[in-house]
Structure formats: structure tokens, C-alpha cells
């Protein structure tokens, strides 16, 4: 169990008031999470205390910043059960992590006639790069379709994963509707045909225990800013024996061992994949975010998400007949996100009404345009939860939705 009122004291922004004194209700953590004071302070400490470029200087500050930077990398490795910190590559975000794989590993390993398999739940960041690889390599992009409840329809999975499959790239937790996919089972099927496995962990790593050894994936991509960390820092985990054979992505400073005017040899792992001055403050901030999450325990973070989701789904039953709620109903198969649509209230109008009550939600297609189109609506409204949200905030959301229905619903009068 999380002590949420104590947790909330750690997040300065949560005491903010918006408009005419409405307390902020942040239900948009799937877009970006808020930051605890310890994360903000770690960045201040870095800039005030030991700002220096890493891996370069012989002086005291560079030694200190390098140690903190590499310490953060080790924290990430431990957090996801990686075999070594050498397997952790700093990127800007999940999107860059996935593109790194598409520009390196995929160039060497995807050939004409091969198949790349993704799910119908993918964020554009785990779909668009594979469309290009498939086109360039004359490979085929295949999609695991959805069942009626927007979980994956696995009835044809043994045809979809076949000897031509070279990569299964799948989201572990849908940012758009919250579905949690059985990535471990799918990874085992991929292994059986010799395919590589990439997991988009942008929403799962912040919200539940994720262990790369347990999943047995080759790649895991995620972002710092959705897990209490700063923006501009992301991670790509690559299994060690694959990383050893991967060509560098960006070339330049820090990723080289020896350079002549004609040629260069590569630095050891993981720095071979980190050309140029990295985001030192971001990495250190992400390390502080992991410390904070470890202090709470990821099982507790997941259970809190499930509890909030259950409370939301139970409360929303009141509007069951009019409100379409997407995703599986079992909180074990989905959590952290409630995505919905009402025929009388456009999501943008709903978002504006809620905003004026201090409630921040996301409306639109959530960077999953094909998925939202398949739901048969132009857009959905999405509330997403995290470790600092309360049942009372979910209740305020429901009150806000009801207010919007009085405003717009069914040709009734104007403001209530």
C-alpha cells in the first residue's frame, strides 16, 4: 500500500492551483509524469556542485560527474534486471531508442521476404519506424489484431509468428487504452522461431515491475519523463551478445577508441552508442527517479494503479449506458489508463470542461491513430493515473464528466 498523502507532499506541483483557485488534478501521467522534489534537487545539485563533461577530464569535477553518470546507468540496469550496465544506452526518449534499433540492428538483420510483427496497440513510435524498415528492405509488416475488448486477439498467433518472422516489436502497456500485453508469452513464441524481441516499455517500466531477463527480450525502450524523471533522457536496453555485434548509430566524439584521418575504431560498450556529450543532468535525474520508485516498491506502484483503475471502472458504471469505455474490464489485464468516449460530447469539449475544473486529461488519438480509428471514433478522452493520484481525484473526474453531460448532453439546457 502506498501512503499517497505523504507521497503527494514530495511533488511541489501537486499543490498548484489553476484558473480561479481550482486544485490541480493531474490525470495525464501517461503523457508525462510529475516530478518529486528529490529528482528536481538532484539536477540542481549536479549543476551547482559538479557540472563537468563526462569521460573526458582529468579534473575533480569530471571524475565526480562521470561517477554519478555511470552510477545512474547502473541503477537503470538493476531496475530492469539487465545483465550489465554495459547493456544500457542513454537516448533522448523511447522514440529515439526504437529508431536506434531500426537504424542499426534492423539494417543488418532484416532482409527481403522477412516479416516484422507488431500489435494493433502500438504507439506511432513503434509502428512508423518499422513501416520504413519494411519498405526499404522489402520485408512485410504484420499486425497482431485486437479482440472485441481491445486485448490482443491471439487466435492466429502461431501463423503470425512463423519462421519468416525476424522481429516481434510490441508495446507492453498501451498508452492509449491501458491494455497490458502478455509480452513474456509472445517473446517465448518469437524465440521458438528465432525472431528477436523488442518491447516498448514507455508505459510499463514506470508502472509495474519489468525484468528483461524474465521477459527474455532483446531490446527494451523507455523514457525517463514518464517515470518521475526529467525530459530528454531515455533508455535502450540491448541484450549483451546482440549489442556486441551491433554497428554504431551516431558517430563522433566519445564513441571512438582511436581515430586517424582515414579511419576509426570503436569505444567499448555502451559508450560506442553514445556519440557526443550526453544528457548528464538528465541521466542523474533519472537515477534519482529510480531511487524514489525503489523506495516505494514497483509492486506497490502497480497495485495502486490497479486499485485506482478498478475504482474508476466501478464508478463509471453509473454512466455505463452512454459512456463507451475501451479496453479489457479486468484490471489485471489493463491499468493506469481509462480511455472513453460519449456520443453527445466531443472529447475536446469534455477536456475543456474538465480543464476549467482543474482536471488535466488528454484528448485526441494519443499517437495511436490507427487504433483510435479502429474504435470507430475520431478521438477519445483519456485519464491516466500514477502513484500520486487518489480515489477522490477519480471521483472529481466523474463529477466533471457529469457536468459536461449536463452542458452538452442530449439537447438539454446550457450550463448546470
Amino acid at each position, binding site marked *: 500500500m502506498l501512503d499517497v498523502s505523504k507521497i503527494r507532499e514530495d511533488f511541489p506541483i501537486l499543490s498548484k492551483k489553476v484558473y480561479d483557485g481550482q486544485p490541480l488534478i493531474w490525470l495525464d501521467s501517461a503523457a508525462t509524469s510529475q516530478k518529486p522534489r528529490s529528482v528536481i534537487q538532484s539536477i540542481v545539485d549536479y549543476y551547482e556542485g559538479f557540472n563537468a563533461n563526462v569521460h573526458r577530464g582529468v579534473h575533480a569535477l569530471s571524475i565526480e560527474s562521470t561517477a554519478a553518470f555511470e552510477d545512474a546507468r547502473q541503477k537503470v540496469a538493476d531496475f530492469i534486471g539487465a545483465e550489465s550496465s554495459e547493456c544500457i544506452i542513454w537516448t533522448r526518449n523511447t522514440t529515439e531508442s526504437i529508431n536506434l534499433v531500426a537504424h542499426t540492428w534492423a539494417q543488418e538483420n532484416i532482409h527481403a521476404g522477412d516479416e516484422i510483427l507488431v500489435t494493433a496497440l502500438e504507439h506511432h513510435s513503434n509502428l512508423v519506424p518499422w513501416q520504413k524498415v519494411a519498405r526499404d528492405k522489402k520485408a512485410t509488416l504484420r499486425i497482431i489484431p485486437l479482440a472485441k475488448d481491445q486485448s490482443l486477439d491471439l487466435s492466429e498467433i502461431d501463423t503470425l509468428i512463423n519462421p519468416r518472422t525476424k522481429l516481434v516489436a510490441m508495446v507492453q502497456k498501451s498508452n492509449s487504452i491501458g491494455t497490458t500485453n502478455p509480452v513474456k508469452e509472445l517473446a517465448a513464441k518469437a524465440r521458438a522461431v528465432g525472431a528477436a524481441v523488442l518491447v516498448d516499455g514507455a508505459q510499463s517500466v514506470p508502472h509495474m515491475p519489468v525484468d528483461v531477463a524474465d521477459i527474455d527480450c532483446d531490446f527494451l525502450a523507455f523514457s525517463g519523463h514518464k517515470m518521475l524523471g526529467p525530459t530528454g533522457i531515455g533508455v535502450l536496453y540491448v541484450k549483451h551478445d546482440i549489442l556486441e555485434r551491433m554497428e554504431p548509430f551516431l558517430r563522433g566524439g566519445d564513441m571512438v577508441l582511436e581515430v586517424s584521418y582515414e579511419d576509426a575504431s570503436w569505444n567499448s560498450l555502451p559508450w560506442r552508442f553514445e556519440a557526443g556529450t550526453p544528457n548528464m543532468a538528465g541521466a542523474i535525474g533519472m537515477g534519482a527517479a529510480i531511487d524514489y520508485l525503489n523506495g516505494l516498491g514497483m509492486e506497490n506502484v502497480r497495485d495502486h494503479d490497479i486499485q485506482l483503475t478498478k475504482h474508476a471502472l466501478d464508478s463509471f458504471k453509473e454512466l455505463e449506458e452512454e459512456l463507451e469505455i475501451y479496453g479489457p474490464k479486468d484490471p489485471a489485464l489493463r491499468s493506469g489508463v481509462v480511455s472513453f468516449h460519449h456520443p453527445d460530447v466531443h472529447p*475536446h469539449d469534455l477536456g475543456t470542461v474538465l480543464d*476549467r475544473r482543474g482536471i488535466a486529461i488528454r484528448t485526441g488519438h494519443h499517437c495511436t491513430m490507427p487504433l483510435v480509428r479502429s474504435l470507430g471514433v475520431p*478521438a477519445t478522452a483519456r485519464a491516466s493515473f500514477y502513484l500520486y493520484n487518489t480515489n477522490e481525484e477519480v471521483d472529481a473526474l466523474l463529477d466533471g464528466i457529469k457536468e459536461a453531460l449536463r*452542458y*452538452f448532453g442530449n*439537447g438539454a439546457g446550457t450550463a448546470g
Partner: protein
Amino acid sequence: MALERLDDLYRDAILEHRRNPRNADKLEDFDTTGDAVNPFCGDEIHLQLKQDDKGRITAVGLQGEGCSINRASGSMMSEAAKGKTPTEIRALTDWVRKLMQGDPEAESQLSPEGDLRNLFGVREYPIRIKCALLPWSALDEALSKLSDG
């Protein structure tokens, strides 16, 4: 209470136009058409215009999918466009755009189109300005296809 301020955006006239959009039937007999899509929210507008022999717009058909601001703006636009020449419509479009951008001059200009003034409140919601202007983009496109446009 927060919702009182919301009334500045969702004025009665906007809610009324949203519920009873004018000129919503698709024209079978038209001289030009225009379409506009906002891929970020999935909103879309499809417009047909019919002119008389002097070039004045005599009939408007407007269909689409969108939020209340988009629908109301389109409905008001369809009423305002009727009886005007393309040149007059362009001046009106220009005025609406300036109004949305907060141009003080546009604000002081009295428009003969009473209902359109209800779109004022949208300026306070920058993210929604695009919703209000989407139908006007379809109108631009329709006019640009006319030979006398």
C-alpha cells in the same frame, strides 16, 4: 465557480448552433466544394457552395465531424456566407481570423453577422482556435476553386 467562465466559451448561441446546425444537408447541385481535416483531433469538414449568375452564394451545404466549437463555427459561417460574393466572403474570413488572433481592430469592428461574434470567447482557449477556424479553411479552399475567385 469555474463553469461560469466556461460560459464565455460555450455561449448559448454556440450550444444552440451545435444542436441545430444550419445548412447541414449535402448539396447535390453545387459549383464548388472544399474540405478541411485536422488530423490531430480527427475533425473534418466538407463544404459545398452554389452561386447565382452574379456570383453570389445562394446555397451552402456543410457536413462533418467535430467538437462543438468547430460545428458551431461552421454553422454560423454557413449562414453568414449566404448572399455574399466571394470577395465579401474573403473579407469576412479575414475578419474572423483576425478576431481569433486577438487583433484589437477586428474586435472593434462591428460585424453584421451577430452570431459570429459569439466566437470571441474562443480566443481565451488557444488550443481551440484551430477548431473554430477549420470550417473557414474549407471555405477558403472552395472559393479558391472558383474561376471568379
